[in-house]
């Protein structure tokens, strides 16, 4: 990547608007050091984070120490393409020596004694610098970032609105230029929906591509980490640093590592885009739909053709998800009992009382609801009616995608049925909140890769709110998805828009 950027420094955009490729070139050319770049972002976080609440933890000393090590690697000539670039980590990734809370009171004192594989790969191996840990819905259970023990994140496009969730802190941090890029995790839409609501690009990879070791588990058969950044090109570079087989994760796929950036410029001539009729019916804000239709017209100009497809069981994805995800969560979250780490209730009468009080005090309302649903659907007499039925429907949903991909290369639709909603608007009604994810959840059930990219704006009360388009691909089609998004981003500038006043 070195030496490709021949433009003089004065022709380049301000450092906070540069792509990861441009930052890499600036670091390689010694235009800026990693310590300077990291310092620039830490200063922005100090100044602007109180407005957005995007970060739970920053640790400038550790960040700058990592930046000094990156500068030494660059000086020694053994830097990788991302060495020295600072990024934000979702607070779901265990990071040795860092407070790792998962947005929960029950982990509010948990300084991780080990690194998640994603953390080790990105920081130790690729040489990225950790700027801090981003806010999130508690245990990734939410679509608005309002369930965090550390308070809601505010959307940089309108601070009276939610950034989406659960990776809302990561999305807001990238949108507000508090970090050039970030990580997220996606169990039912938690990368794609906040990416859409904050005008950034986010990719959920094929299940099994990114190691889940050290990624605090919510629903293990659905959870998948992925990149959140300002462009598809940035996501491609980050993804390459996150993937790879990991013996520590029993569901990690043993595949050769890929160069996701190699195919970015491939032509879209001959690309067939499937438009599922279920994504273009009722239930979507007409202004969101208009932006998605404009994006489809743009794709036709770029040489793609569209074909109608159907995902007839997609209406069952939310019901099946709210059985499977809580069932897995109730099992995963049983480890939080106040014995080995985390919060323990100060007063209790016996062991059972210690568990019950620790968990009652340590978990928030939404997490408790999901644990209770999970405990119920797995309990004696209800397992077949709920859990097995949900798993059968999961198969029908995956089969729908397999049938659709016989007729198209990628599937396109809206990411979210509405733009960012007001803080508190859906907080009292869990079911309304769950329906924010109607277009994203089926992808997790099938285990497919999908991304969200900015495709326009809608105006609500004089405020410009971002809209995202979702591209869904077949298993292991990440490079193609990123190519399809990249060509669109070369022809449009939605992804370059920034909130006012940054």
């Amino acid at each position, binding site marked *: 990547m070195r030496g490709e950027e021949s433009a003089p420094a004065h022709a380049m955009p301000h450092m906070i608007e540069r792509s990861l490729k441009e930052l890499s070139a600036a670091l390689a050319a010694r235009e800026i050091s990693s310590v300077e770049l990291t310092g620039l972002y830490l200063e922005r976080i100090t100044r602007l984070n109180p407005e957005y609440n995007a970060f739970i933890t920053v640790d400038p000393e550790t960040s700058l120490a990592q930046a000094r090590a990156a500068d030494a690697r660059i000086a020694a000539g053994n830097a990788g393409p991302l060495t020295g670039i600072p990024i934000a980590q979702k607070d779901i990734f265990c990071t040795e020596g860092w407070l790792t809370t998962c947005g929960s009171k029950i982990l509010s004192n948990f300084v991780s004694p080990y690194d998640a594989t994603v953390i080790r790969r990105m920081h130790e191996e690729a040489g990225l610098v950790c700027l801090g840990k981003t806010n999130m819905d508690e245990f990734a259970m939410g679509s608005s970032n309002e369930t965090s023990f550390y308070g809601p994140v505010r959307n940089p496009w309108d601070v009276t609105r939610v950034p989406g969730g659960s990776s809302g802190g990561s999305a807001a941090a990238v949108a507000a230029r508090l970090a050039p890029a970030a990580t997220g995790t996606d169990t039912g839409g938690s990368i794609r929906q906040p990416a859409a609501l904050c005008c950034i690009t986010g990719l959920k990879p094929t299940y099994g591509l990114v190691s889940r070791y050290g990624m605090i588990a919510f629903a293990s058969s659905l959870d998948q980490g992925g990149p959140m950044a300002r462009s598809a090109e940035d996501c491609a570079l980050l993804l390459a640093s996150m993937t790879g087989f990991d013996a520590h994760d029993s569901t990690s796929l043993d595949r050769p590592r890929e160069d996701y950036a190699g195919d970015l410029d491939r032509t879209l001539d001959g690309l067939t885009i499937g438009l599922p009729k279920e994504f273009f019916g009722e239930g979507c804000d007409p202004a969101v739909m208009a932006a998605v239709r404009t994006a489809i017209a743009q794709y036709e100009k770029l040489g793609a053709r569209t074909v109608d497809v159907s995902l007839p069981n997609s209406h*069952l994805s939310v019901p099946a998800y709210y059985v499977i995800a809580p069932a897995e969560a109730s099992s995963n979250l049983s480890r939080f009992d106040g014995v080995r780490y985390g919060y323990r209730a100060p007063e209790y009468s016996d062991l059972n009382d210690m568990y019950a009080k620790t968990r009652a005090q340590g978990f928030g309302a939404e997490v408790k609801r999901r644990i209770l649903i999970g*405990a119920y659907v797995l309990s004696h007499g209800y397992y077949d009616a709920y859990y097995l*039925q949900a798993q*059968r429907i999961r198969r029908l949903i995956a089969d729908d995608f397999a049938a659709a991909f016989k007729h198209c290369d990628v599937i396109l639709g809206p990411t979210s049925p509405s733009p960012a909603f007001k803080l508190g608007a859906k907080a009292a009604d869990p079911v309304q909140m769950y329906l924010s994810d109607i277009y994203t959840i089926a992808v997790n059930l099938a285990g497919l890769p999908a991304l969200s990219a900015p495709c326009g704006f809608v105006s609500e009360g004089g405020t410009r709110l971002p809209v995202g388009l979702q591209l869904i691909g077949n298993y292991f089609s990440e490079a193609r998805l990123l190519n399809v998004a990249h060509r669109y981003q070369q022809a449009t500038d939605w992804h370059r828009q920034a909130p006012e006043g940054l």
Partner: protein
Amino acid sequence: MSLTLEQVRRIAHLARIEVSATEAEATVGHLNGIFQLIEAMQAVDTRGVEPMAHAQDLAQRLREDAVSEPDRRLAFQAIAPEIEAGLYLVPRVIE
């Protein structure tokens, strides 16, 4: 279907989460709303459909029966609420 207050208390006990009387009342309402959403599944005929537990058809990997992890007991116990002599302390369960 509709959950009763008694069922909510029972699953809260199974899940080891203490719920107060007022919390239980609010929880019944929320959970029943969620179960109404879930009920849409019951109308679907899934006879003959193989349940899908996982996105990839994976067999569990085997590994060599060899020590792979270093001893990190001190680091792991340093963050425990209460330890003594290398053991995790909990309230007495056997008198």
